[in-house]
Every structure is written in C-alpha cells, then in structure tokens.
C-alpha cells in the first residue's frame, strides 16, 4: 500500500490551485517547508508571504487579504494555529465569516519525537466550537488534495487538519469527496466504526480482523467534522445499533463527542471511544505511540466487541 503524508497532498493541491487561480495567496509562520507551503512559494513567490514566528499576526494579515478579495491559506502547525491564535481566528476570521483556509499540519500524536508541545490533539474541538467554521480532517494524501482544492471555493473559513507522517493511501482519485458528506467505506450490520484522519486506515484494518471473527463492521470516513453529516450517523445507529468512534485527537469535544451529540438527539445507541483520553501526547515513534495511546486496529476491535456486548444487554 502506498504511503504519503496528508501535508504532501495539501502541498500538491496548493500548487495546482496557484496555477489556476490568481487570487490564491499563502502565508506561513516560519514553517514553510514542513507545512509544504514551500512548494507554492517556489512557484509563486509574489503570492507567498513570509510572516515569521507570528501566528496571531499571520491570522490577522490573512483576514485583511481576504477582505481585499484574496483567498489566503495560512500555514503552521495545528497547535500554533488553533491554540496560539484562537482568539484571532475567532474575531478576525470566524466572526466576519471570511474566506480563509487555516491549515494546521502536525495534527495528532503521529508527529512523534517532537513530543506534546508539537502534537496537536485539541484543534478539532477548538475549531468546531466557532460559528461559521468548517473543519476537515482528510484521511490520506489524495483526500487532502481534494479537500485543499474544494476549500478554496468554499464559502467561509475552513480549518484543514493535516498530519506529518506517512499514512497509507486508502482512497482513490475517483472516490467522491464532498465537504460535509461522510463516505461509507465498508458496509456492515453489527457495528459501525466512524473515524477521521489516519484512524480511518486503522478502522479498515479492524474491519478485516472483525470479518474473520464473523463480525460485520460498517466503516464511515467522517472527513468533515463540521458541518457534520447527521444523516449518515443516524442511519448507522439505526441499522447497526452500536458505534465506535476513532480519532487521533482528544475524545473531549472531538469526533467522539460530536457523534454522541448527534446520537443523543437522533437515536441513542451505545458508543465506545477510541482517541486520546484527556492527556497530552508524548515523544516516541508514531508506531509506538499508537500502541501507548490505544489507537490501533486491535484497540478498535476490542472496542467493537465491547460495544456489541452493550448493545445486546
């Protein structure tokens, strides 16, 4: 299986956008290579703005560029965008509903050795509480590229959550991708696994393991965290009666929370959460950390069995 970081898909999409559209501008807060903004900079230096280590200023400058009719992408790590500049995103961008794409790379613990200060595990929560904000966490590089291009034509601000490390390519060029519309990847009747980002891959592996044990698991890629596809979640609850959510992010306010918010209103069923459990990340290799944080396919399998037991009680 091919592997590629989602940030690379973003970088490619950005260059293609730059070729087609003169209104695309890119800002970076001294993380131009690691966010892949550098690929755009190389081709379109006159539309690239180096902002130095000033995330708050970068967000405000992007707001001004958007007001002047440009379509800015701001690039830095997720922790620094969503965390350091949260109030600037709130007031200078979301409140005015400006067309700015906030790109947060290095989402999740798969950042690895840099450790907790650089591993964003709270951004989905921080961003989705803001009115007008759209939040997307693509599952692979192909999807990241599609998301990048669609975000550039979307109305209102978009937060794009990307990762640093290589992740398996699980979608194809031909697969449909629509902001706000979840993708059904595997059908199944016993339990549904709803995942985003890298965890989509782990969910697909879990599906295969469960299949061998005669458990039929539906897998949904909830790439758009906001606006959330309520219909797909509700249908899954009605048809499978048990849900596992999987995210490389805190379960407080993230994917697990938002699925639960939908279910408690629409069709309550038991839910098990795979995700970061109210703690900071830590240094290590991504593979080791997935085990430590219980984010692997095996963990999803265990959660699936637990939730099926709860359903049958």
């Amino acid at each position: 299986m091919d592997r590629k970081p989602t940030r690379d898909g973003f970088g490619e999409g950005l260059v293609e956008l730059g070729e087609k559209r003169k209104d695309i501008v890119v800002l970076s807060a001294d993380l131009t290579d690691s966010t892949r903004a550098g690929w755009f900079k190389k081709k379109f230096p006159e539309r690239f703005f180096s902002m130095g280590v000033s995330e708050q200023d970068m967000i405000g400058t992007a707001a001004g560029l958007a007001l002047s009719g440009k379509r800015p992408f701001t690039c830095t790590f997720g922790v620094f965008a969503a965390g350091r500049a949260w109030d600037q995103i709130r007031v200078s961008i979301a409140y005015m509903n400006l067309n700015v794409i906030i790109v947060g790379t290095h989402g999740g613990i798969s950042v690895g050795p840099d450790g907790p200060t650089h591993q964003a595990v709270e951004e989905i929560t921080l961003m989705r509480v803001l009115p007008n904000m759209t939040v997307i966490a693509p599952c692979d590089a192909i999807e990241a590229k599609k998301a990048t291009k669609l975000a550039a034509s979307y109305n209102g601000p978009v937060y794009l959550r990307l990762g640093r490390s290589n992740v398996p390519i699980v979608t194809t060029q031909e697969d449909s991708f629509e902001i706000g519309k979840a993708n059904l990847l595997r059908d199944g009747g016993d339990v549904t696994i709803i995942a985003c980002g890298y965890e989509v891959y782990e969910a697909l592996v879990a599906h295969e393991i469960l299949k061998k044990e005669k458990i039929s698991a539906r897998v949904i890629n909830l790439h758009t965290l906001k606006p959330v596809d309520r219909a797909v979640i509700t249908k899954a609850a009605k048809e499978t009666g048990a849900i596992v959510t999987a995210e490389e992010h805190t379960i407080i306010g993230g994917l697990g929370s938002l699925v639960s918010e939908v279910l408690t209103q629409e069709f309550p069923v038991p839910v098990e959460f795979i995700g970061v459990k109210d703690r900071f990340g830590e240094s290590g290799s991504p593979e080791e950390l997935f085990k430590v944080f219980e984010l692997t396919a095996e963990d999803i399998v265990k959660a699936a069995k637990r939730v099926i037991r709860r359903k049958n009680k």
Partner: protein
Amino acid sequence: MAGRPEIKTLKNIAREIRIEILKMLTCAGSGHTGGSLSIVELLVGLYFYKFRCDPKRPLCHTRDIFILSKGHACPALYAVLAHMNFFDKKELCTLRKVGTRLQGHPQRGLPGVEISSGSLGQGLSIANGYALGARIDKDKKRIYCLMGDGELDEGQIWEAVLTGAHYKLDNVCGIVDYNKFQIDGKVEDTKALEPLKEKWEAFNWEVLEIDGHDLKEVMDAYDRAETIKGKPVVILAHTTKGKGVSFLENQNRYHGVAPTKEELDRALKELEGE
C-alpha cells in the same frame, strides 16, 4: 482632492459628534465614554477631509479603508458614519440594544464598518493584510488603523509592526490615540510605553507626533503620511481621554461607563454653550 475644509467647520462637526456620542451612550446606559471622546478630531480630520469613500456605495472599490482596532470606541465611529449618512442618524439610539446593527463593539455589516473588532490588538495585522492585497491589485487605496495606547500592550501589535516594516507598507497609516490611560489606570503605571516614538522608529516606521485635538495638525499629519514612501507611517496623537467635557477629561472612571442622565445634561450645556 478638494481644498481643506475650514477649521471652524470641522470644529463644529467635532462638537456635534461629541454630542451624538454622549447621547448615544446615555441612551444605551453603558459603553466607553473616555476613549470615544479622545478620538473625535482624529476621525473628523480623516473622514471630513482626507478619506475617500461614498456613503451611498459603502463597498465601492476605490474607497480607502478605516480600521478601528480599539473597537470599544465605536460610538465615535458610529456618530461620524451617521453624520456622513452611511446610515440614518436615528439608528444611533439603538446602540447596544437587541437586534441592532450598532453592536457594543463594531460588527462588519453596518455600512462603513470594515471589520469586526473589540478584542484588542488585532487591527494592525488586518490593515497590513489589506495593504498587501491592495498592492497585488495595484490599487492605490490607503489603509488607516486606529489603535489605543493601552492596546499597544498586545504582542500581536508588535508582530504587525514588524510585518508592516518588512513589507514596506507605505499604504498603511497607523494612528495611536495616546490618551495616557487604560482600564487599570495611567499607561505609565500599568505598563509603560515610553520611549514610544523611538520604539516605532526602531521598528522602521516613520513617526509623526501631533496634538490629536488640533485639527490643523491632524490634517497636516494625514497629508504628510501620504507622501512618505518605502515605509509605513504611524501618527502618535497626544490626546486627552474624555476630551471636550470638563468633568470627564482625564477621569478614567469613565473609561467604560456611560454618563448618567444628569451628567449628560451638564455635558450638553457645556458643549452647546461653546
């Protein structure tokens, strides 16, 4: 550009704006009195002289941009915009009431209001971004950004000061309402800014220091700012918080407090007696 308006005419407008501000605040029962009164001449000298805009077409492409970074002083901006017929003066009395376009802090959407603000420290970055966009489009518009002196405590301002200088944004004109007070007290006791002129200069900004209530100096500064090329300009305007009403001047308890009905009557007597 048409010639300069007479100082006498502008003084009279400033007086009327102050009256509107005070009436509005008393009617709302809350709001920021001191910092609204200190920026009246800075706004009047801009909007009634230098500023290119069309109240009938508030979003027309050739307009200049005014960004009120110290959003809490919006009563002054609202009064000026209403005076210029961006919207009906009658709307002023809806300030801070449910359903109003005149929110407690500015909200984009009210004709003439370019940005939502109120969380201090954010305006100069937006001004820079606007200026960069205008530069790409070869658009000659000028971007004005009014900040408070207390607001300069915000780190983001100094990030933006670096950005403005780095990109040599000579289409940006910063204005500091240097009224020497912030909420906790005197600026020099709360977090000293001096030497302020030298700070901006060290950051490669051209600094024009003026009396922010002297309309001639204000207009001269806006004229001069336009002629400076290759770097951004900031006008350090020395002002008096609560300017224009004797019992409000330098009385920092009126920072975020509206005049009572009786105080309003006294203030109006002073202003109308002028």
